[in-house]
């Protein structure tokens, strides 16, 4: 719909307001890209240069898919590409995958994220699930062996050319390989734990962009400072996980079972809390709704970690809360000025 007319004497006649905030979608999206760089560097540091190749491939696929679909849908391509949302999806997807996945897995995932999760619902702003997370969940089902097995094989294969494995020492002084299991939260390997310091820095197994808490924190704080995300979403999410992990009895007893610091530092919680749960499109609109959303995600994360077959609950908890978002929106409508609060 056109809202601006040019009169004969070159005066613009448009609807009020005549000034706008400086902030724009592209500024927000590129700030997110920037804030994800430290985590990427940490990933390369831990798992090798192959990671760069994967991230790049993921972004490229995402952008090419986006252009392709937009052409199919006969929509303008230029603006939508420069807004950077496809690049963000590409990076986030790569960050949630094991460092040694074959190239075709990431291409399939990235294509799925943009073509199916994003555009089959109407493109930017209309998707129900976070595209990167939904694509990850899809890959988990489509390539279970690659996503869940011992990663050593994959890494060996993928990294022959780029190998820079960092050897680690666990608490017992044993030399361990940094990239053998999917996550430090794997329940079967009960005897192996990592030091909190290791988890914080990121010298642990895990997905490309999820291991280094410090790098993620750096990016997250930058986004909060730039007002791209609300601080209370990661705060409520991580806080809830912390409390739940401390007080809920787990089904399988591990050395870190009720160690709440271990639970928030290990796995993809920081990546999820700062970069996925804060995705505006798939989270509720109001502050109240966002608090419900992030507390819910925190509860679900621990429920999945403690009582399901999966070691890690971040991905599914956020996807589940994404699904609940329309419902949350319905119950957290803003109060019309001058009226009493409605009873639900």
């Amino acid at each position, binding site marked *: 719909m056109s809202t601006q007319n040019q009169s004969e004497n070159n*005066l613009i006649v448009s609807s*009020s307001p005549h000034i706008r*905030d400086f902030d*724009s979608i592209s500024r*927000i999206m590129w700030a997110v890209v920037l804030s994800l760089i430290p985590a990427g560097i940490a990933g390369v540091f831990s798992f090798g240069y192959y990671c760069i190749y994967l991230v790049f491939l993921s972004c490229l696929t995402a952008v090419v898919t986006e252009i392709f679909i937009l052409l199919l849908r006969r929509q303008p391509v230029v603006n939508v590409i420069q807004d950077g949302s496809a690049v963000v999806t590409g990076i986030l997807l790569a960050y949630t995958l094991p460092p040694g996945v074959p190239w075709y897995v990431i291409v399939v995932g990235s294509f799925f994220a943009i073509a199916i999760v994003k555009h089959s619902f109407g*493109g*930017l702003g209309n998707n129900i699930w976070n595209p990167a997370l939904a694509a990850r969940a899809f890959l988990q089902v489509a390539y279970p062996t690659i996503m869940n097995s011992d990663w050593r094989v994959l890494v060996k294969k993928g990294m022959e050319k780029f190998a820079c494995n960092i050897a680690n020492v666990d608490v017992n002084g044993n030399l361990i390989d940094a990239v053998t299991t999917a996550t430090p939260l794997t329940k079967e390997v009960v005897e192996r734990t990592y030091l909190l310091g290791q988890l914080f820095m990121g010298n642990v197994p895990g997905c490309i962009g999820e291991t280094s808490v410090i790098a993620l924190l750096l990016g997250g704080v930058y986004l909060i400072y730039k007002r791209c995300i609300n601080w209370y979403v990661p705060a409520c999410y991580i806080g809830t996980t912390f409390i739940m992990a401390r007080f809920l009895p787990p089904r399988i007893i591990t050395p870190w079972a009720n160690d709440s610091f271990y639970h928030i530092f290990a796995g993809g919680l920081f990546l999820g809390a700062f970069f996925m749960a804060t995705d505006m499109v798939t989270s509720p609109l109001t502050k109240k709704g966002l608090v419900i959303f992030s507390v819910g995600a925190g509860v679900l994360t621990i429920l999945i970690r403690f009582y399901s077959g999966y070691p890690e609950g971040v991905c599914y908890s956020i996807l589940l809360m994404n699904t609940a978002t329309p419902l949350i929106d319905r119950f957290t409508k803003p109060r019309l000025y001058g009226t009493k609060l409605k009873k639900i």
Partner: protein
Amino acid sequence: MLRVVKSKLKTFVGGIHPKDDGKSFTAGKKVVPASLPNKAYLFLNQHIGKPAQPIVQKGDTVKKGQLIAESQGFISANVHASISGKVVDIAPWPHPIAGVKLPAIIIERAEDDSWVEDIAAIPDIDHNISEAEIMHRIKSAGIVGLGGATFPTHVKLAPPKDKKIDMVVVNGAECEPYLTCDHRLMLENPYEIIQGLKWFMKCIGCNSAHIGIEGNKKDAYLLIKDTVSKESAIKVDLVEVKYPQGAEHQIIKALLGREFKPRQLPLEVGVTVINVSTAFAIYEAVKYGRPLIQRIITVSGNGIENPQNFFVRLGTPVKQLLEDAKVTGDINKIIFGGPMMGIAQGDIETAVTVKGIGGIIALRKARKWNSSACIRCGRCIDSCPYGLNPSELSVLSEAKNFDLMLESNVLECKECGCCSYICPSKRPIVHLIKFAKAEIAKQEVRA
């Protein structure tokens, strides 16, 4: 979203803090008279309500301040000649706010600029003036709300019997960016404002008033506070610098903590609101019998070399004001009013000043914004002072789903523009809402 500004000043929930507030261009500049127009174009419709009825004819000679059109019915206001001269035509002319041609009385200026005799004849008054006399003078002077709403002031003086007014709120917030006319008025005429207010209070029989001034006008606040220091009935408070702090709902909430529905009148909570410039017009009318024929207008913007606050005779062509303030050649937007709620003009040749306009903003390189889909960031919801969901309303309007919009209270929207201002997708939310309201009105007419 994260615009949490800690402040002890009184305020309301929601709103925005425009970065580019443009007040510094004119805040320090004394009000000066603009040059007199060669032709004044006086609309019969300079207020909400029925247009006035002309009582002069083409060819008549009129003098400054002479009644030329009489108010019709209760909600209507008189119109007076703003210059002395000859009525050359009564014809439709493009109305800057209505956006269509409406009848105007066109006066060509004569050399002499003296007041019409019966104005000079009104004797000076003492403080014992009766309520009826104040009422009469305000009504004959054709005073309307000068904050922009242009509601005839004499109507406020006769509230419905069942509504008890216990407080007059005086709006000195002036929250629209760029405008400084009220600020200057408070600095230059504090006594007159307070005296006008006192007469207004006497007339409606209400003995307390509360003045709200935005925190960025501390000088005006101190001066007004000083002026009322002996009056215990009049309180002065600073309110937070935030848009739309000067809107009725927001200033009442900030000063008194009272809330009422967007479409209700302040009467609902026992309040009546007047603008400081309205109080000044009341003073002029009661004290000297002067009708409302001029007002202060801020002429500013990056297309103006010498931004000014002008005393402007109503009906003055805008082109002349722009020349007085040294407009640059390459302006591409002219806004009547402030940048948040003002109305963009398509033609400076025909545009003229009217009672409700406090500013004219001329911009060079005014931007056009490309809008994209809503990314559900929720900022518009946080900024809406009335608790609406602008995101939802804009999407529904695009889908032409007006029934659902009605359910979502679209009619309560005041078109303040906070939501469009803050939206990172640059969605034309206010435009979509205005469009939907017009469509809904059409449907109601048909039904």
